[in-house]
């Protein structure tokens, strides 16, 4: 199962929360994580999951 790059959880591919970045698809546990990723994708790809965003 893919891993949410923001909070580190395992998520199903059927989730509606997903995006493509540099040709790779990323899946998220929630809209909050997806939004957080969109804000700064490089940071999460570089530094790894940070846990649930607080907002």
């Amino acid at each position: 199962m893919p891993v949410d790059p923001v909070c580190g959880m395992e998520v199903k591919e059927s989730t509606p929360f997903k995006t493509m970045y540099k040709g790779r698809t990323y899946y998220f546990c929630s809209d909050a994580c997806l939004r957080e990723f969109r804000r700064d994708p490089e940071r999460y790809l570089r530094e790894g999951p940070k846990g649930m965003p607080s907002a």
Partner: protein
Amino acid sequence: MPEGRGPLRLSREEQLRVVGMHCATCATTVTKALKGVDGVVDANVNLASGTAKVVVSGARLRDLVEAVRRAGYDVVTERVRLRISMNPEDSRRVLDLLEGLEGVVRASVSPGTGEAVVEINPYSTSVEAIAEALTSRGFRASVESRAAPARRSELREYVRSLAVAWSFGPLTLFLQYTSRPLLAMMASAPVVFYAGLRYHLGAYRALRNRTTNMDTLVSTATLVAWLYSAYSLAAHGPVFFDAASLLISFLLIGKTIEAYIKERLSAEVAGLLPQRARVLRDGREVEVGADEVKVGDMLLVRAGETIAADGVVDDGKGEVEESVLTGEPMPVLKSKGSPVVGGSRLVSGFLKVYVTRSGERTYVAQLMTAVRDAEAARLRVQDLVDRVAAAFTPTIIAVAAVTFLAWHFALGAPTARALLFAVAVLASACPCALGLATPMAVLVSVHRLARRGVVVKDGEALERVRDVNVFVIDKTGTLTEGRPRVVSFTELEPGAMDLASSVEALSSHPVARAIAERFGGGLSGQVREFNEFPGDGVSGVVGDRQVIVGRPEFIAQNCEGEARGDVAVCVDGRVAGWLTLEDPVRPEAKELVGYLKGIGRRVIIATGDSGPSADLVASGLGVELVKGLTPDGKAELVRKLRGEGHRVAFIGDGVNDAVAEREADVGIALAGGTDIAKYAGDVIVGSLRGVEDLLRESRVAVRKVKENLAWAFGYNSVLVPLAAGMLYPAVYISPPYAALAMSMSSVIVSLWSLAPL
């Protein structure tokens, strides 16, 4: 632990069903949110079962639910409907009572119709339990079936009482003035004790709840007059049975008119559907009751008839007048395959309609439910009204007592005369008009809008929309027709459009459909690994080519090369071309924007498009534009504007913009379909013209509320002193005339609300 709002209770456990938790961190978030509520001792959230067990001590259920919803999740609740026998001015008390019950999240009470909508936690209470609790406190409550409002019987009861009152009332008068006091007493008894029974029961009910209401005043007034006369009869003093009996008779006139007005109003929406319908059963035409029509039936509709249920035309052709849906009186041509809604009228032709929704699921039934929910709106001014109403009756009783004492002891009037002044005070005071002022005005406006295809789901929005100064309008599908067309394209790599259209052919997004249609999408059968990114675009593999189609920004973060146009195409990691699309602006959109600007409102177009075509639309309409927004981005924009102190309305399609619509002060959905429940938003319009109607009606409603209240306050402050005999003997109001004035006062509120001024 803080004391908590509401009554102090011992700690108890409340179980909630939480939805939307898809991860362990979600459970933690919900737990944290619940524990953060004042009065929560402990909270335990189970991710697997989706339940939250909360130990509360003084916390309100509503705060728990709101905390969970604020955290981004939802709680399963049920909305139930009750019919409660009460006076309009009791609504606050009933509301407090309801909200104090265990398992009640929130409640709203419609004083105009005596209906309550209660949101409950089905895990801790039931609608029967609530009805029982209310009945035990003296407010007879019954569970309301959605189909048929039982208002007719109220009118019938009033008519019966009225008939009794007007047979025996004048008789009392005649007997008393022909000096037959004993017979007068006997003639007045049916009026006072049968026709007036509702008032005595109401007063008794209020007494049991240790409060007072309009019934207290009427009951006290008539009983004082009647019992004193009975005593006086025995002591050979003056009698005034006529006062008691005419008082009731006059009151009932007003009440009957009111009940009639209410019934007429509710019948208007209910009457949208015909009573009978003709369907095809076993190949034969049979006539059945409209409520017997089932999904799958074939309806036969002739010119001039109203369609009885929602469906699709199976055969035939005709012009249908759909003002119930769109507010447009111009008939629309319908033929095989066209959808039709119940309540619309076939002007000419003949239709066979395959029924897809019947009974409670029809558009009109949903409309009725929405309208009845909206009627229970509590406008801001209502808090003031409630405070006044609570103090009103005790004050009047005190004034009546002072009147009696002053006339009898200070001015030396005989007991009978002083008593008549006191009774007149009781009879003249009218808390009813006060209680009716807001709900009647809202009721009328909500109904008037419903007839024009504007469904107000949240009655308070009617007030809020007046103060809106910024209208954020979604572009695609709202301002425009939502049917984009490709106007030009650039291919950097030959065949890019064939690849793009083949992937787009698998998506149902309007832009995707436009592209697929324009270029054929011939290779769609070969697309593998199709993936759709809502708001961004799509991707897939065609043959051995990796294809991405989407917003230029989305393409830019995935591909090399400069992405331009409204939609860009990327093949194997390089930008391979782009397209510009055009979506025609609706003619009503221009009218609406012109109207909004004309009344000094700011208009912003919000769109997910990022290409140049959005600029054309905005500059064409002469308004601001914010583009490249995801659905969340639209919500963000609304939040930001509200943060700056603006009052914001969002007009969108009610599905893709649901978040932004909920975020706004007023969410308006331009419904493309007829399933009201499906759309987010406080108000649903069938056409953009509805927004103008809404704004206009909003101003009317708020003005009417103010005028009604001014009347109610003004009436009482003039009539009560007169009834007390301040200007006696120049002006004297006897108890029956005081009662007539009082009942007319509330009739005037009802009529004034109805007046289209």
